[in-house]
């Protein structure tokens, strides 16, 4: 097992393709995305019940064992979060390398 960071990002669904592109441009080792989440925050209630998904959230999970890349990811998504809302949590984890 290798120490790594687990980054979890909640962002509105329309921005998910942009975030995915940003991540692959940054060269992350991989990511997992769960769609159709709902939620609440500073900008009110967000429901996954609309036709466009404008009101739905997407949850991204990224495992990353490269500290400098973690910083780049965080700096990369900060502007997205400040204009469009959402959250980003970073925590410690161990990665079972096979």
């Amino acid at each position, binding site marked *: 097992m290798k120490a790594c960071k687990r980054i979890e990002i909640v962002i509105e669904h*329309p*921005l998910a393709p942009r975030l995915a592109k940003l991540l692959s441009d940054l060269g992350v080792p991989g990511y997992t995305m769960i769609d159709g989440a709902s939620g609440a925050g500073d*900008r*009110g209630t967000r429901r996954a*019940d609309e036709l*466009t998904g*404008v009101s739905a959230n997407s949850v991204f999970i990224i495992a990353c064992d490269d500290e400098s890349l973690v910083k780049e990811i965080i700096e990369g998504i900060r502007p997205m979060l400040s204009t469009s809302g959402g959250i980003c949590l970073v925590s410690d984890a161990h990665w079972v390398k096979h």
Partner: protein
Amino acid sequence: MDSLFLTNLTSPPLLFFLLGVAAVLVRSDLDIPDQVAKFLSLYLLFAIGFKGGVAIAESDLNLIVARDLLLATALSALMPLYVFQLLRKHFSVADAAAAAATYGSISAVTFVTATSYLDAVQVSWSGYMVASMALMESPAIIVGLIVYYRTASAGDTGRDTNLREILHESTTNGSVFLIVGSLIIGWLVGPQGYAQVKVFVQELFVGVLCLFLLDMGLVAARRVQDISGGRQMIGRLLLWGLLLPVINAALALALVTALNISVGDGVLLVVLAASASYIAVPAAMRLALPEANPSIYLSMSLGITFPFNLIIGIPLYHQLLAWLA
């Protein structure tokens, strides 16, 4: 006059819309799964586009058609200009611009419901009105954004704005794409191809519309309940959510009468002008204008204008046009 309102109020689709609203009011847990709701809307776009295309294939396109399509496009580009001016005193620049784009654009479901209303009261309409609808989806987005960038101070817009990207978003939105694509395919295959899908496209239409409007009733009522910001904000949204469709309808009505457009097509054009987008525009705005608050423009268009047009607007515009004709 009453009879038109009554006919509308006793049409199954509208009653199911009201049933959806009622379900939210009594806090029922009735719910249409979101993927299914999305599919119902794809079906409606597919069906109306296909039907419209076949109707075009069967008619002969002429200068009048070209004029009407141009008129629709121009309306959609024009409306955001004055809507923005009207709203900017009451909302932030970004919110006013987003709402201007929303009201300049159209609601496909309102259009679809209007066609089903016209079919029920047996007023004929032209297939190329579907093309008008498709043409009216995107221009308002571009105009709304241009207006925003011209008004907002330099500091506000200091991010990577990319007009090409915005143009792309606004013209390749899934719902615009499907309706235009279905229209072209309907046109290409004509009545012969239509025969293969007629039951699917025609006979299921009103039934699917009922279930879809049931969902819209749920969604619209929830949005109204989610409105936050106190009495003053609610009053403001209510006011403009009712005023804007009336203003836009009035302009379109004047044009329709001046140009002697038939009652059926006229009703549809007025409905398009009066309706506000809650699919294509909000999706584009979240990307191009994220600082605009969706709970303002979505609440207005989905929670107030949409029900207004459905319940009162459609028969009202029809009545007025019948009088003026």
